[in-house]
């Protein structure tokens, strides 16, 4: 009877959870139903976790004497882990979201790897397939864990420069081969029953050590600008690791949920890489973002700085404005001020829209979230493919804290590192205003010809401060008229 409960209840609960996860993710394909979608998935998670405790009735005989301690430990671990992550997740700033996702993702990879570690410690005669699947999941989970931590460090700017040296790819491949070699040796020992040169525990420790180091080494040379793609890859990797460990534990909920995320993460990675016009292998193995060795074709012309108030008044009397926000806006926390300014323009009858580049911010879609946080309704927000054709018929393109995503060199200059990336055609608008902290290069470290174009004016200053000045200017105008 008890065995029946330990099979029936978790089995039914996992099935329900799998349905809720898939349906919840489906609901997330529209901003309207998305909040309900994540809540459904959350309910699924809650049900699955509660049901997992019914396994107490079906633990293996050897674990029975430890059951009480194990239950308490599991409960404490859930409360501690969930409590800390929940608290942190509730109070973290929206701009720091990519780092946070990286950390949570690393935790998932770590959980998969530690499950594999326990399985390996107690590995008996469950068969070669399961052993190999366990080891594969372990490598992927461990790489995802250490790689995500490096990704976090880079996004949080704990680690500022990508670390590169000659022959790095060779060293990384060597590291991976060692990891696979240790895993193969472990399989050999278990299969043949020969005595290992070290204790089994030591071999397992070396195996995980190698996998963790490989994750670090693989992520170190990748520049900060590419981190979104990297997090997305690790997100898919963690999903895969979870699915593989699910197979080992014979748990279909882990297998389905993990594989869904594995596929979704892979698709998202490809979409992102496509938006940057780079292949995934190019992101992982090339040294993009390094100080380019070749000289760029010198850009002719000078930058023309203007006052914020002049720019504001010009836009007030324009017919149409497209705002192109970038990460610089988020850094200065100017989203709310910007929207206040936009509201003034809208009230004055100007047609204002936001154009979002797929890789604006440090994560695909992060800019959408930041604008939503400031209260910008999402029907004013347009994606690159929906709005790019409208620039030639638009009076003003207002570039605010963005740089690489509006660099015309991406269309024309084959020697430029950003060549081929789809850009927002701000240079095709009749006039262009660029709000920028100072004369400098973008995240990718490339000069931008747009800033020197004859129809471009530069407004130097902190994005939030400039927006405040522009609000003043337009309000002053209204007051003068009245």
């Amino acid at each position, binding site marked *: 009877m008890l065995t029946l409960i330990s099979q029936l209840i978790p089995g039914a609960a996992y099935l329900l959870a799998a349905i809720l996860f898939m349906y919840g993710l489906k609901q997330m*394909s*529209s901003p309207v*139903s998305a909040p309900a979608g994540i*809540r459904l998935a959350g309910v699924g998670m809650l049900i699955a976790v509660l049901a997992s405790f019914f396994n107490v009735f079906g633990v293996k005989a050897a674990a029975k004497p430890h059951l009480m301690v194990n239950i308490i*430990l599991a409960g404490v671990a859930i*409360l501690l882990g969930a409590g800390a992550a929940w608290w942190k997740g509730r109070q973290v700033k929206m701009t720091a*979201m990519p780092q946070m996702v990286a950390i949570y993702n690393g935790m998932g990879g770590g959980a998969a790897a*530690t499950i594999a570690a326990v399985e390996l410690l107690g590995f008996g005669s469950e068969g070669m397939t399961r052993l190999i699947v366990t080891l594969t999941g372990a490598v992927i989970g461990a790489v995802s864990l250490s790689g995500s931590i490096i990704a976090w460090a880079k996004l949080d700017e704990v680690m500022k420069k990508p670390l590169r040296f000659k022959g790095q790819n060779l060293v990384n491949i060597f590291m991976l081969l060692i990891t696979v070699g240790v895993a193969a040796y472990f399989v050999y020992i278990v299969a043949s029953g020969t005595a290992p040169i070290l204790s089994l525990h030591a071999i397992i420790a070396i195996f995980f050590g190698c996998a963790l180091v490989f994750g670090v080494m693989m992520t170190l040379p990748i520049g900060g600008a590419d981190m979104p793609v990297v997090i997305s890859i690790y997100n898919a990797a963690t999903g895969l690791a979870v699915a593989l460990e699910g197979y080992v534990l014979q748990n279909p909920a882990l297998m389905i*949920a993990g594989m869904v995320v594995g596929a979704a993460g892979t698709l998202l990675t490809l979409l992102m890489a496509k938006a940057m016009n780079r292949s995934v292998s190019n992101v992982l193995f090339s040294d993009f973002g390094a100080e380019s060795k070749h000289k760029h074709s010198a850009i002719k012309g000078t930058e023309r700085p203007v006052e914020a108030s002049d720019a504001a008044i010009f836009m007030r009397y324009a017919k149409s404005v497209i705002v192109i926000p970038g990460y610089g806006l988020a850094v200065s926390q100017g989203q709310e001020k910007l929207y206040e300014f936009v509201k003034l323009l809208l009230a004055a009858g100007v047609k204002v829209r936001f154009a979002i580049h797929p890789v604006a911010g440090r994560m695909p*879609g992060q800019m959408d979230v930041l604008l939503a946080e400031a209260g910008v309704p999402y029907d004013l927000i347009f994606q690159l493919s929906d709005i790019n054709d409208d620039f030639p018929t638009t009076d003003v393109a207002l570039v605010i804290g963005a740089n690489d995503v509006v660099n015309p060199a991406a269309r024309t200059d084959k020697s430029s590192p950003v060549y081929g990336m789809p850009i927002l055609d701000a240079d095709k608008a009749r006039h262009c205003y660029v709000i920028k902290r100072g004369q400098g290069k973008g995240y990718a470290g490339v000069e931008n010809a747009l800033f020197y174009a004859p129809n471009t004016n530069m407004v130097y200053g902190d994005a939030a401060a400039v927006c405040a000045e522009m609000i003043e200017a337009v309000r002053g105008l209204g007051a003068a008229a009245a």
Partner: protein
Amino acid sequence: MHFSFAISGFVGLYLFMLAGFGGWVIIGNVPAILHTPLMSGSNFVHGIVVVGAVFVMLNATNPAEQAIGFFAVLLGAGNAAGGYAVTDRMLAMFQTSGHAAAHKTAKRSSIKKAAKGSGS
């Protein structure tokens, strides 16, 4: 009647294939505006690993397994709870403007359809 089952060999591969295809199709429809919540949401979904971790923890037979199992549950629970917290926060921010702006692209109209479908 018994409810135990074994997923072995090809059955496992079938399950992976179907789930993978399902994930691919489901995510393929998500507009770019939701990519960050989606990444974070799928990050939350693989937090299901906590269920496996609890299973391993309950079946631990010695202090080493208990210690590692404890970490597995800790990390898995963090993944699930944190992933949910940030995704929910992000999604709560999306709102539409009151004035019915005339965007008649296909993507927008599909959003409106979904709005009707959800009913709230």
